[in-house]
């Protein structure tokens, strides 16, 4: 039964563009747009959860990595005319590189200092993006980022220009990230991560080097965030410094912690709830933030494992750790 349910859900998700067109024909483009954002944010949230949920390092630096990837892709596409896939790869690598560089000193710090240090990093990155006008054009934004074209040089090329096309691209990216996430958080590697998160001294005693595993999760998480950044800018065709502010961290925290930190399904549920639902409910924007904050406060106090665990309890399923 569970198998069948999952398959039906997966089929529905893939067929969404047609379903949406059938059910809400006049609003289908808007709905697809929201779904694209949701998929991208879900991938971003998963990359964040790797660091926060599985290795237990409360990093607040994710917007910086997202931004590095986004700007790298934007600059390579507009100034150097790199093909989409090459730019995507470069973006992910650039973000991962930055993470590796800053991770070494950052991880020497204690937990609290680490959090504040990563916050400082995010802020500095934002300030640089805003002021290093020669490279990022600062508040004037990088415009004219072309639509993605998939394919290898010399072979067949597929240009992604329609909304359903984007949706499937984003979905494919999400699937890839989710698969990687699954791989990294189960079996031996996953257990090592969790050992570091749950009991660092014991892990060290058992021969698991906490620094190495934290750096691994941190770097991979950053690389994935950079990749999502690249997809994001190709979708919007514009990249401005406002897209990488601390507000993004807050969004991610909401998605991960309210959804269910450290669980794949939890993060996915969180992404859907907190990206798609607010758009569809169309509350007054400032009130929306008040409600977000209040919800976050309530849930994190009453049920820190997030809505996912609440759902699990409600539907009587076994915990999925």
């Amino acid at each position: 039964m569970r198998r069948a349910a999952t398959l039906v859900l997966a089929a529905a998700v893939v067929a969404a563009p047609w379903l949406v067109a059938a059910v809400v024909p006049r609003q289908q483009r808007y709905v697809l747009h929201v779904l694209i954002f949701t998929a991208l944010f879900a991938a971003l949230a998963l990359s964040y959860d790797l660091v926060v949920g599985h290795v237990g390092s409360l990093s607040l630096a994710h917007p910086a990595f997202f931004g590095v990837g986004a700007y790298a892709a934007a600059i390579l596409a507009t100034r150097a005319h790199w093909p989409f896939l090459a730019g995507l790869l470069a973006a992910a690598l650039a973000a991962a590189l930055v993470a590796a560089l800053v991770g070494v000193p950052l991880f020497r710090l204690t937990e609290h200092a680490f959090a504040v240090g990563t916050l400082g990093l995010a802020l500095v990155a934002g300030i640089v993006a805003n002021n290093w006008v020669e490279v990022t054009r600062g508040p004037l934004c990088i415009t004219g980022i072309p639509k993605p074209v998939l394919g290898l040089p010399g072979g067949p090329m597929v240009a992604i220009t329609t909304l359903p096309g984007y949706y499937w691209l984003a979905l494919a990216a999400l699937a890839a990230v989710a698969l990687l996430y699954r791989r990294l958080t189960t079996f031996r590697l996953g257990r090592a991560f969790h050992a570091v998160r749950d009991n660092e001294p014991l892990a060290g005693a058992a021969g698991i080097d906490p620094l190495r595993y934290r750096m691994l999760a941190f770097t991979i998480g950053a690389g994935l965030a950079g990749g999502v950044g690249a997809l994001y800018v190709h979708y919007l065709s514009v990249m401005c410094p406002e897209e990488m502010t601390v507000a993004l961290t807050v969004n991610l925290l909401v998605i991960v912690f309210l959804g269910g930190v450290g669980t794949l399904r939890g993060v996915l549920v969180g992404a859907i709830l907190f990206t798609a639902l607010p758009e569809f409910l169309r509350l007054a924007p400032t009130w929306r933030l008040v409600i977000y904050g209040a919800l976050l406060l309530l849930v994190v106090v009453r049920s820190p494992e997030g809505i996912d665990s609440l759902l699990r309890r409600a539907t009587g399923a076994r915990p999925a750790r």
Partner: protein
Amino acid sequence: MRMRVALTLVALLLAALSAGALSVGAQAPPIRIGFASAMSGPAAITGEGVRWGATLAVEEINAKGGIMGRKLEASFADNKATPGEAVSAVRKLADVDQVDVIIGQTHSGACLGAMPVVKELGVPMVIEACSHPKIRELSGKGGNEWTFRVALDDEIMAYTFARYMARQGVKSSSVLAMNNDFGRGAAGAYEAAFKKAGVTLVSTEFFDPGQPDYRPVLTRLKRANPETILGVILASDGAPFMRQFRELGLTQKVFSRGSLASAEFLHQVRDNPKIGDGVVEAGYWVVGLDPDWDKKWTERYKVPPRIHGSLAAITLKWAVVPAIEIALKKHGKADRQTIRAALKEVDVKDSPLGPIKFDDHHQAWINMILIEMRDGQLRILERLQTSPALLN
């Protein structure tokens, strides 16, 4: 069990959407105008102004019976002053609210993000305030046929203003600009314009809007010692800036572009209005261009009229409404295509901003006005006409 929960959630979601999509077939459906601006976040004050201005203007028009019997209906969307959200805002207005025309986005980053989407969706957008010069380049012939702009951009204003300053005998200036799209764009434009006009640019400084402390930059300016200072600054930052300017005893003449010489500024320095004496500002809107409107605004909202709401209202009343009239007369309907075509034919001679007629790049060449602030009063020094010839 979980399946049922999931299905119920999805069903609820789609039901909520469909409910929004249902429209009651009325005799003469209203013409829907969408307004997009920053309704939340640090720039929320602009969105609030737009909402107020739009509401007041739409009520005014409907009270007179609408346009040829057709009432107007306003919808609002939040672009949070970022391009990503601007895309969502445009899509929401177009697909969910089914608007026939959009007025927005107030902030240049948002405008740039929105432009490709209005083209894709085929919704005309009339820009009331974005000042990025690239917008003019990208609109109209050979580019985006769906975007139009009423406001002047910084290139136009910079060349006009620099020429005026040179005429007054100004030899050198330093630029102090907000560190956002507005400020950076303007600073870039003035750099080129000063060169052309023969004014030496001594230095350029940027500051973060909303931050309270100008003494460091004022010290730098004092050291650089330009003859004049050109401030690209809004009233809310302008008030502390001018106070600290006086505090430090600087004596340069201050020219400005933004909303330094404005009713808001005077309200903020009402304890000592002389703080703003001598500031000359280049803009295209000031309180007093439409006293009727000012009165209605003050009565309704209890604060002096704001630029962002008033621009949206003027754009509605003197650009979009005439277009709707033309569309209704010619084709009997005012939908996205007819309104776009009609916008190209709009030729208003006497709006509060000046003539509104869109050229090949869908730019209206409204008047630039020079406002001087003295003794707590604002007066219009000069009204300058603008035209493409200025840029040569």
